[in-house]
């Protein structure tokens, strides 16, 4: 049996001296999509940044692909060696690079030669329907196009796991549905283990196999999405699933 893509065990993180996450434990299995749902300020984004290695935890263990990434307050694997990918809420497309340039940077940072980057870039831009926009700059793209570039940039180097930080929160309903369909297809096709941070129950139901509820920096409930709908525990979970009924 292969090890989980991401394991978080007893994780505690402080930000500016204040505890934001306390004793958080969960795992994301290979091919699984786990949604982490919580209100604003519950520590969702801090959790992602700790897994990525962008903040050093206070306590606990983070393992990525079976390797220790941080133990206690010591980071043992720098961010670039964790082989994770992220789509931020604001997408974070580098504005001075073209669409192809955004993908090329991540590939070349992973050691792919410039000549060898062409094929995966072509393939992924085709896959997200942007084959004809490779020379455009992010500022020249529509919101939906930018979203698709961010997805392609995250998946082009075949990461061990994908992290999504409320990636659809700024989209209108129609666009959001189209993009969620695309994400679902891509995740199913590539079997990429995914951690989705969201406060939208629709997103969680559409994409996730399981949901973890984060309240005040603590995981209060974790389980299959269907069970969460029928047996919510705690005030946030109640409010969260109410919108699905």
């Amino acid at each position: 049996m292969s090890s989980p893509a991401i394991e978080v065990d007893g994780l505690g993180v402080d930000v500016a001296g204040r505890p934001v996450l306390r004793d958080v434990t969960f795992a994301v299995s290979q091919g699984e999509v786990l949604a982490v749902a919580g209100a604003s300020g519950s520590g969702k984004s801090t959790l992602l940044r700790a897994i990525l290695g962008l903040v050093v935890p206070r306590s606990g263990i983070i393992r990525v692909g079976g390797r220790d990434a941080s133990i206690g307050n010591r980071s043992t694997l720098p961010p670039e060696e964790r082989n994770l990918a992220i789509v931020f809420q604001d997408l974070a497309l580098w504005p001075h690079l073209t669409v192809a340039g955004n993908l090329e940077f991540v590939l070349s940072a992973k050691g792919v030669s410039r000549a060898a980057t062409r094929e995966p870039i072509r393939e992924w831009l085709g896959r997200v329907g942007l084959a004809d926009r490779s020379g455009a700059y992010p500022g020249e793209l529509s919101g939906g196009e930018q979203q698709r570039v961010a997805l392609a940039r995250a998946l082009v180097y075949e990461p061990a796991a994908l992290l999504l930080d409320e990636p659809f929160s700024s989209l209108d309903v129609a666009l959001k549905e189209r993009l969620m369909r695309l994400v679902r297809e891509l995740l199913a096709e590539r079997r990429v283990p995914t951690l989705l941070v969201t406060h939208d129950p629709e997103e969680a139901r559409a994409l996730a196999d399981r949901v973890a509820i984060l309240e005040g920096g603590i995981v209060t409930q974790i389980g299959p999405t269907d069970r969460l709908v029928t047996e919510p525990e705690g005030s946030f979970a109640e409010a969260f699933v109410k919108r699905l009924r």
Partner: protein
Amino acid sequence: MTRDAGFLVPSASAWLRRQQQRLLAGGLALVVAILVGAPIAALLAELVVSEEGSLGLLGRSALWLLFARTVASALAVTAIAILVGVPLGFVFGRSDVPGRRVLWMIHTVPLFVPPFLLALGWSYLLAPGGRPAELLFSTFGVVMVLSVALAPVVTALTAVALAGIEQSLEESARVVAPPLRAVRGILLPAARPAVALGGLIVFALAASELGVPLFLGGRTYVESVFSRLGGIDYAPGEAVVLAAPLLAVGLLLVILERRLVGRRRFELVGLRRIREPLPLGRWRPAATALAIALGLVSIAPLASLAWRAKESPSLSSVAGWLGGSLWTSLTMATAAAAAALVIAVLVGHALVQRRPFGRLLDAVLFLGLLTPAAVWGVGLIAAWNRPETSWVYRGWPILVLAGAARYSILAVRTATVAFAQSSPGLEEAGQVAGAGYGRRLLSLVIPLHWRGLVLAFVLTLVFCLRDLDLFVLFYPPGREPLMVRIFTLEANGPPEIVAALAIVQVLVVAAVLASGGLALAWRARR
């Protein structure tokens, strides 16, 4: 409102309230036209009526060689400032070098000290002679002194730009690339407009420099303008002709600024969160050593000045040599900074509101900084040295006009960055509630951004205090600012007195900066 023939007619006061912004914009345009437009217009008018003999100067190849040499020196200073300033901007702004804030402050010290004083300090330090002194008193020495003096411009702009980049842009690069690769591939290219701006400012200030080349012996084009305004080769008509190519340089720099820096955003979004510094890994000791070494180079000439000043006979003799120059410096610089602040509030506000009028005035005021000081000297003399405006030309107002014309842009850009950090909704809420333009400025914009405006005032004040190249060209008799006093005394005054006056200049600027820092800290606590 009043009712007239069945229609609601706005009362005069309501009309005035609605037109406040237009009226103030008109007044502002007039002020900027007087500050910047009048000297340029006067210079161009004098140029048109120049005698053929004066115009013939432009046909001399020796003159153009001198021009090329000045441009080449300024380019060398710019290249060094970028080579040093960009890596240091990263080291001080985003790296994990220990004590980076203190080291940054030390590196910035030369920016607030007139470059002439740095050259003076180095000359005392290397006085025993030999090869180092020979190198100092050469074009090489001029380039090196100016590079140390001006590199902090690039450092500061790079560091602020890096710190202001959206956090997620940096983090998405860090997820795939080691720190230095993320810096090289993403952060520094994203900071390119700031680096370009720094390069342009350094070039302009280096090309404008008069005191350092005059003292260290590297001849420059600017000196040829200066000598024709002074007593020896007095020929104001020729000075006008010689200023024309420098005006072209200023215009070219403004065009470059518009093209390279463009419609940049003033929001420093990345500053809104506390960020972990980027680890330098095995490069950390080398970067720390380099930062310390450059820090020592920055303060060595000041230590040398202080050492020489110790030999001064007494404080009262120093005060005697000072005369009224310190008072002139302080009053002139304060008045110029106050005028610049008013301009900065109005232009900065127009800039964040993305009004074309704001961009136009910003470009005109930028011309003030990017055009070599010699042009302003010649232009101000041409504009104001007339019987009907002699009260301006013969007194302190000419110094205030000159200081505000040259340095207002520093206040404008500082205020604009401050204004851009807050949500437009704050002011819009006031507008919806019925507050007119003036009321919104006085009750919302200024109190909300008080700290940024203090910084804008202090920055302009310090640059007016440190100026030599501009004021030396036309200071009124008996009203020379302190820097001009030191510069003129250097030729034939006692060295220990010159050094003591230089230390007074440094202490005054330090006191102004410290007062600004205290004011900011006081506001921060409230």
